[in-house]
């Protein structure tokens, strides 16, 4: 078996036993990237020489007798909205196409303590706004299962690179489903942690009350380990939670007998594909066989979630993205004669259509005369949604739904219709509004050979329950990966 087929924890074992070097791992992955990257386009920045020199450094570090941690020498791709010192961080935008971060994000610092192998900066929807990775200034990413299909978004590059065996794991960010939906469409595991579990310091902000960094991996064990590596309090992020990080790997392969699972009927809507529904139901039957209790539950205010999200996220985005004005960094229109002309032209030329659309929505919702009807109202309905979840978690350990209503769709299919595109995230958005953790993992493959994802949602800081159930699904539900590349 080739090295690229191994999970992070399997590579870790081999490194510990001194059976392979990090350089050999780097060689295997670089070769794979050379073979498939023209088709996939998962990376914005990728530098062979940098990967090899870093691999040699890590090999020396190991040879010197230093401790080998979970991600020592493990290839990880980083979504290009996470700041990496000395390496371009573009957010897949013309606005930042030449921006070189002058500091590392906290998650990068934490992984550097492991001596991880950064394989490259991954493609994404511009400023993490999108569900198909078609909104990138660096070109669309293709789904390794079917190159005519989108990989999902906005973490399309992080998801496709893991699915295509171009990296062992990756880090993405999730504001309304941007880790889970692409994980679902690419047949891998994607975890959005509790809001505040992982520091956002160095993550280019989209919607600050919703954004969270999390792992994309090929199995649940790697997901647990990578979460453990990046989680924890950070004084540079005043919204990070100051509690101990549990040993997440210890929650895998545990007995789930008696665990209570709720199925929110508002997430089993008519827009869900039949095949998706039946795969999810099949997984639920497996969980029942393993002794879990499965019941339908109603969270009535979830019907407002999409609308609430499309007020709150664009409002926060319109504020966050006001910093891109051509003054201190990024793109600038150099032909303007006055500063206001420069602001307008810089932003009109530097941002793509979807980013501008969301800035416009947000600006409208926050503008004088509309603030109460939209932004303030949305914050109140958000409270109702949170209350629904709180009530549900009094009864249930986890909630389960499909991750995405459909499997991967064709490139171009939804590109001209923003509202239909927004509906791709109808099952994942409520989770961000409530700040709770959720995972997506594969639970089947459609007749057209596209992966289907199931979402497991937990209460605040109850990643343990999410991982227990995800691990049970992973070991019980069998499916077969059949990539086009």
């Amino acid at each position, binding site marked *: 078996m080739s090295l690229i087929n191994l999970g992070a924890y399997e590579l870790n074992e081999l490194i510990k036993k001194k059976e392979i070097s990090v350089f050999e791992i780097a060689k295997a992955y670089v070769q794979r990237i050379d073979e498939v990257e023209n088709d996939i386009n998962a990376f914005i920045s990728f530098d062979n020489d940098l990967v090899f020199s870093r691999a040699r450094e890590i090999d020396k570090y190991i040879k010197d007798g230093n401790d080998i941690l979970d991600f020592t020498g493990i290839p990880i791709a980083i979504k290009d909205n996470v700041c990496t010192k000395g390496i371009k961080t573009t957010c897949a935008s013309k606005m930042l196409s*030449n*921006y070189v971060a*002058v500091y590392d994000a906290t998650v990068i610092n934490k992984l550097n303590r492991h001596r991880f192998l950064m394989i490259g900066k991954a493609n994404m929807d511009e400023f993490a706004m999108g569900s198909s990775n078609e909104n990138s200034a660096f070109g669309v990413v293709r789904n390794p299962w079917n190159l005519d299909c989108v990989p999902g978004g906005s973490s399309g590059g992080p998801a496709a690179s893991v699915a295509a065996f171009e990296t062992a794991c990756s880090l993405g960010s999730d504001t309304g489903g941007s880790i889970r939906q692409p994980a679902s469409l690419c047949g891998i595991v994607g975890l959005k942690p509790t*809001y505040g579990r992982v520091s956002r310091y160095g993550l280019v902000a989209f919607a600050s*009350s919703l954004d969270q960094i999390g792992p994309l991996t090929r199995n649940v064990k790697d997901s647990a380990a990578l979460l453990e590596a990046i989680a924890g309090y950070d*004084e540079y992020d*005043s*919204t990070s*939670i100051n509690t101990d990080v549990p040993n997440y790997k210890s929650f895998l392969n545990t007995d789930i007998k008696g665990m209570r699972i709720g199925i929110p009927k508002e997430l089993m809507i008519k827009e869900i594909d039949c095949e998706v529904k039946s795969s999810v139901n099949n997984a639920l039957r497996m969980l029942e066989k393993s002794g879990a209790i499965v019941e339908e539950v109603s969270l009535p*205010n979830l019907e*407002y979630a*999409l*609308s609430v999200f*499309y*007020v709150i996220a664009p409002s926060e985005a*319109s504020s966050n993205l*006001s910093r891109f*004005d051509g*003054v*201190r*960094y*990024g*793109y*600038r229109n*150099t032909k*303007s004669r*006055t*500063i*206001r*002309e*420069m602001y*307008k*032209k810089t*932003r*009109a030329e530097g941002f793509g259509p979807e980013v*501008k*659309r969301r*800035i*416009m*929505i947000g*600006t*409208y*919702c926050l*503008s004088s005369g509309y603030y109460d009807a*939209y932004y*303030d*109202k949305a*914050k*109140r*309905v*958000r*409270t*109702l949604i*949170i209350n629904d979840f709180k009530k549900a978690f009094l009864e249930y350990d986890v909630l389960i739904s499909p991750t995405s209503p459909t499997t991967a769709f064709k490139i171009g299919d939804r590109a001209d219709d*923003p*509202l239909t595109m*927004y509906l791709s995230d109808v099952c994942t958005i409520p989770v961000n*509004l409530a*700040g709770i953790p959720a995972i997506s993992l594969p639970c089947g493959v459609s007749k057209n050979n596209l992966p289907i994802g199931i979402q497991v949602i937990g209460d*605040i800081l109850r990643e343990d329950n999410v991982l227990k159930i995800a691990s049970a699904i992973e070991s019980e539900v069998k499916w077969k990966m059949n990539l086009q590349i």
Partner: protein
Amino acid sequence: MGKIINKKDIKHIAKLAELKYSDAEIDKITDQLDKIINHITKIGQADTSNIVPTSHVLEITNVYREDKVRISFTREESFKNAPLEDEDGFKVPKID
């Protein structure tokens, strides 16, 4: 669905957001924004009497720390990504 957003609104919002749409783009964005805003007015149906708005999901309070000097970015680092600078700062066109 009645129209909520017209071209005049788009021009006003674009001005507030420091954005610019060409005449060719404006019909499309007006139509798209109208559809989206029409969709989100759905939140008006929810009964939120006596409901407190949520800004952050966690109950967070201000975080204070000692006002101590610590190493930060150098001048060179701060100007590294500047589109245009001179020795005193970021250079911009005339302020109007």
